[in-house]
């Protein structure tokens, strides 16, 4: 997850549990990275341009990233322990493939979702073939 133009790019990143994420600084200012999230509590001191720091994420959950000196910078890393996860496009569409049929739980997360933990979940039954579902969400 890069830091470019004082933003985390991309703003939201989905990684599998146990992954290590690199944070290259592509700006010409220095950035720090911290997280008080339960899934990953860490703090990376300021580092400069073209430097990269890495962090491993061993617990599944949502990690909210901030820069200590740039309040407006927000970045989110969703550490998942399922392969069936994806980020929607700008129109809110995402396609998950190869999901085995049967009962499943669908969780929807968004940093401004108006729900505890910014996440809602619902149980669904997956049948073979493609299916589409609509979720209506309340945002902050």
């Amino acid at each position, binding site marked *: 997850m890069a830091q470019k133009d004082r933003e985390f790019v991309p703003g939201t990143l989905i990684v599998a549990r146990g992954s290590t994420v690199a944070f290259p600084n592509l700006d010409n200012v220095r950035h720090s990275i911290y997280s*008080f999230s339960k899934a990953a509590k860490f703090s990376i001191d300021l580092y400069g341009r073209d430097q990269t720091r890495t962090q491993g994420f061993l617990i599944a959950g949502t990690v909210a990233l*901030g820069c200590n000196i740039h*309040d407006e910078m927000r970045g989110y890393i969703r550490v998942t322990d399922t392969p069936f996860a994806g980020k929607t496009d700008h129109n809110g569409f995402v396609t998950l493939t190869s999901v085995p049929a049967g009962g499943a739980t669908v969780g929807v997360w968004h940093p401004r979702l108006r729900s505890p933990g910014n996440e809602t979940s619902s149980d669904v039954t997956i049948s073979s073939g493609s299916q589409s579902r609509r979720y209506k969400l309340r945002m902050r």
Partner: protein
Amino acid sequence: MTRAFRTFDKLRFGSLKLRIASLYAGLFALVLAVVVLVAGNALSRFGEASATRDLESNARVFDEILELRARQLRRSSEVLSRDFGFREAVATNDAITIDSALESLKSRSDANAAFVIGVDGKLLASGDARIGNPDALWYPLDEGQQRGIIAVGGELALAAASPVEVPDTIGWLVLAQPLDKAELDRLAKLAAVDVEARVMLPAAMPDWMLSAPNDSVFQRAEGQSTLFHVSPLPALQDDLKPRLVLQHSLDASLAQYTRLQIWLVALAIAAVLFVIALSWRVARTVTGPLQKLDEATRAISEGRVFELKAETDDEIGRLADSFNKMSSAIEDRERKIIHVGLHDGLTGLPNRKLFVEQLDQAVRRLDDSGRLMVVYADLDDFKVVNDTLGHPAGDRLLCDVAAHLRENLPDALVARLGGDEFALLIDNLGSDRSLAAIASEILVCFQRSLMIDGQLAESSASLGIAVAPGDGRDGTVLMKNADLALYRAKSEGKAAYHFFEPSLDEEARKRRQMELDMRMALRDGGFELYYQPLYGAVEEELKGFEALIRWFHPELGFISPAEFIPLAEETGLIIPIGEWVLREACQQAATWPGELSVAVNISPKQFASPGLSQTIMQALAHGELSPKRLELEITESIFIANVEKTLSTLHSLRALGVRIALDDFGTGYSSLSYLRSFPFDKVKIDRSFVQAISKEVNAHAVIRAITTLAEALGMETLAEGVEQEDQLEVLRREGCRYIQGYLFGKPTPAADLGNIFGDVNDKSKRLSA
């Protein structure tokens, strides 16, 4: 307004000065009162308006201050909420660290409460603040509200909140400061005016305050007038609806204006007093001269001379000038009027009034040795001049005489008493001067002859003279005596003078008495008619009677008509007496048998009176007598005055149908032209001719001449005073138709006439036999 002025006009002030002064002062006071009223009212309004404005701006200031405070609070809280360590503490729910940080923030920022509310609405750390209901704060906080009122431990407090972000918001740090009375009072002191500020909750507010519009000033009078301003305050707690209430005592702020109003009134009163004094002064400059004018007018009305001084050359000065001119003009006119009042307008001689005054003075001045002479003069036959030549000619004659008198008698005071009467006063006569000589001199002065319009007018006068002190020591007595002497001079023939004698006085008294007696006789039937028969010489029978008046005075006995008739003529009594005679004669004649006529004498004065025809007609009608049986006897003297007028009167009498005889023919003027000018029915030959028959030879010839003339003119003749047979004989022979005289009968009372009717006829028969 006009009515007010009219009412003012009706007010009685007694003095113009007071009126002017009151009018001006009153008007000024009125205007000033209006000004003061309007200004006072405007002041009050201005005071209210400015108090309202002040309160509004105070409200804004309060809002501003509260906002400022809240921002400060928020800045303080932000410092902590952004602190990495604090955020970490909050994120990790490290309560002890959080509390200590809050504690230090409180002391740093003068706040009394600081706490953290989690994003789930739970109070994470409260310091020692007693937050009743954290949930109520959550919604506004979640909405992003940063400042507002909250309740801390039951007290209202100003709070500011800042989010704790890691970087997502996990809670809010809230910092609060109390808004209690002490704090608000402190804030109120910052305001320009005396304001009391309170933050109130609806539950604590009275109804009128709740229903009042927000954010505007309104007035409420409870004991004293107070301005209120209520504005809502933002709350950081959704169960609170706090209001900021500002109040300001209007009475207090108006008090300063009241002082200004008192000053204004005081100033107005001072101005009115000043104007009263001024208008009094102005009024005096107007009324002062008026007062002087008033005095002057009074002085002139009392007959004093008064000169006004013209001090200025304005209207007042001109008025004084005009007034002086007027007063001198009045004086002039007065003098003229007095002159006119004391002088005769025609001749310019003094009049009777002035003459009497001067005479009185002269008599008073008269000393023991001195004498003075009062002359009464009356022009002789002046009436003839007036009648024949006209009044302008008469006036010219009078003027000529007056001028001549003045010229020739410089020592005498000459006065015209009226008409043709003059009076002269000659003073300072020594005892040696001949009075008769003076009298003759005066008499000559009156003899004038004057050509007027080609005709000669001559004048002469009769004089009556009284001399003081012999004939009286009193002006009135002297004039009366001179008048009596004049009367005597006139009656003794004209153009002569007569001095007063005491016997004249006695005569005058007698005449007055006789006049009174005549009036009484007329009233009481003291007169009686006697009738003397008229005898027809040819027919030898009784033809009628002449009525002759007789007066038997109760004391003096028989009084001759020759004595009282002239007096009756003079006094005018002849008119009523003549009327009586006519009426009585007509009534009597109507009782006589046959066609017997009655002859009545008409005096010149009676003849000239305008009512004669009327009187005759009435007498005839009253007695039911045929007009042809009435004969009027008229003397020639009626022709003296005015021939034309006399002729017209005669013709009008003739028109009545009565007969007219010319009496006493042959005496007096005996002008034949009279006979020619009027066809008399009868001519009465005067008794003097009859009596001459026995004595004079040519008397026959005269009688014959008269009868022949009369016959030629178609007139009858009658001879009076026939007493003897030979007279009768001659008269009959000479052609006289009628005879009257003692030979046939004396005048007889009416009652005895019955005997005569037979008697006379007998006698005539006897004569003819």
